[in-house]
C-alpha cells in the first residue's frame, strides 16, 4: 500500500458551450463583418453608434438605420498588455483600446497590434486588419494596426 498523500490537488475544467443569439441588429453587424464591412447604427440624437446596438443608450428607442463606417479610426484610450494570457488572441504584447472609427461617434473595444508599447499613443490613427477567413464574428477584425510606422 502506498503512502497517503498530504493533500490532493488536480486540474479541473468547467465548460459552458454557449451559442448566443445575436438578434437582428447585432446579427446584421456580424454579417457585415463577414463581408469585411463595419456598420454602426444611427441613434435618436443622430450619433452613429458602433458596434450597432438594438436600443438607443439614451432614449431607449429601438434603432434600425444602419450606417457604414470607415476601416480606419483613432485610439481614444488604451491599455498595454505586457504578458498575453492563454486566451488572448494575440500571442505577443498588444493593447486593448477604445477605437473610434471614421464616421462613428462612439469608440469600440478591440485590440491594437503595435509591436511595442512605445508605438502606442492616445489619438494615434489605426486601421483594421481583417482575419483571413471571416465568419461573422467580432474576431473577423483580427485586430487594428497603426496606420503608419508601427512595427
Amino acid at each position, binding site marked *: 500500500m502506498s503512502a497517503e498523500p498530504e*493533500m*490532493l*490537488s488536480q486540474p*479541473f475544467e468547467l*465548460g459552458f458551450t454557449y451559442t448566443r443569439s445575436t438578434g437582428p441588429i447585432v446579427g*446584421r453587424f456580424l454579417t457585415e463583418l463577414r463581408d469585411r464591412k463595419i456598420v454602426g447604427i444611427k441613434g435618436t440624437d443622430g450619433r452613429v453608434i458602433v458596434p450597432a446596438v438594438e436600443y438607443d443608450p439614451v432614449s431607449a428607442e429601438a434603432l434600425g438605420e444602419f450606417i457604414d463606417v470607415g476601416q480606419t479610426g483613432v485610439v481614444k484610450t488604451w491599455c498595454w498588455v505586457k504578458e498575453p494570457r492563454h486566451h488572448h488572441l494575440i500571442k505577443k504584447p498588444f493593447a486593448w483600446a477604445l477605437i473610434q472609427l471614421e464616421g462613428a461617434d462612439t469608440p469600440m473595444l478591440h485590440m491594437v497590434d503595435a509591436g511595442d508599447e512605445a508605438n502606442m499613443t492616445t489619438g494615434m490613427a489605426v486601421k483594421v486588419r481583417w482575419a483571413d477567413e471571416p465568419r461573422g464574428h467580432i474576431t473577423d477584425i483580427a485586430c487594428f494596426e497603426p496606420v503608419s510606422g508601427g512595427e
Partner: protein
Amino acid sequence: MSEEREMITGMEAPIYLQYNFTAGSASTRFLAQIKQGKIVGQRCPCCKNVYVPPRGSCAACGVATTEEVTVKDKATVQSFTIVYIPIPNNPIKPPYIIANLVADGANNSFIHLMSECVNEEVHIGQRVKAVWKPEQEWDYAMDNIKYWAPIDEPDVPVDQIGKTIGGQ
C-alpha cells in the same frame, strides 16, 4: 454556394473555467480511504452527526470534526432526479437517475448515480447498495463506485432518512 449567404443569427461564445482543485485535508483523507474501498466520514463532537463526505467541520455547530467513522456501502434515497437531457462530454446516456443518497450511519447526503433500476419506480426512501468498480481501478475518486443499485429491503420512512444519530 450562392453569393447571398445567410444572415448571422448566432455566435459561439463558450466559456471554459480552468482551475486547480485542492481537496483540503478532510476530502483528501476521505478520497484516500475511498481508494481503499472504504467510505469514511467524520463525526461532529457536539451534535454527533456523521458527515459523508466530510468537510472537516460541522456546519451546524461550527466546530472541527476529527473523529473518523466508517460507514457501510448501503444507503437510502433522500431525493432523486431523472436526467433526460444529454450533457456535452458526459458518457452516460440519458435517461438516468442522479440521487442524493444518505449512507447507513451518516446524517447527510452525497450525490451519486443510480442504475440497475426501473427509473419510473425509483422513490424516496428506497434502499440501495454500492456497485464498485474492480479493485485494480480504484483511485482517489467517488466513481470507484460505478453506481448504486436497489436492494430488496423495506423503505426508510421519509422523516427518518438520515436522522439516526450515532450510527446504524
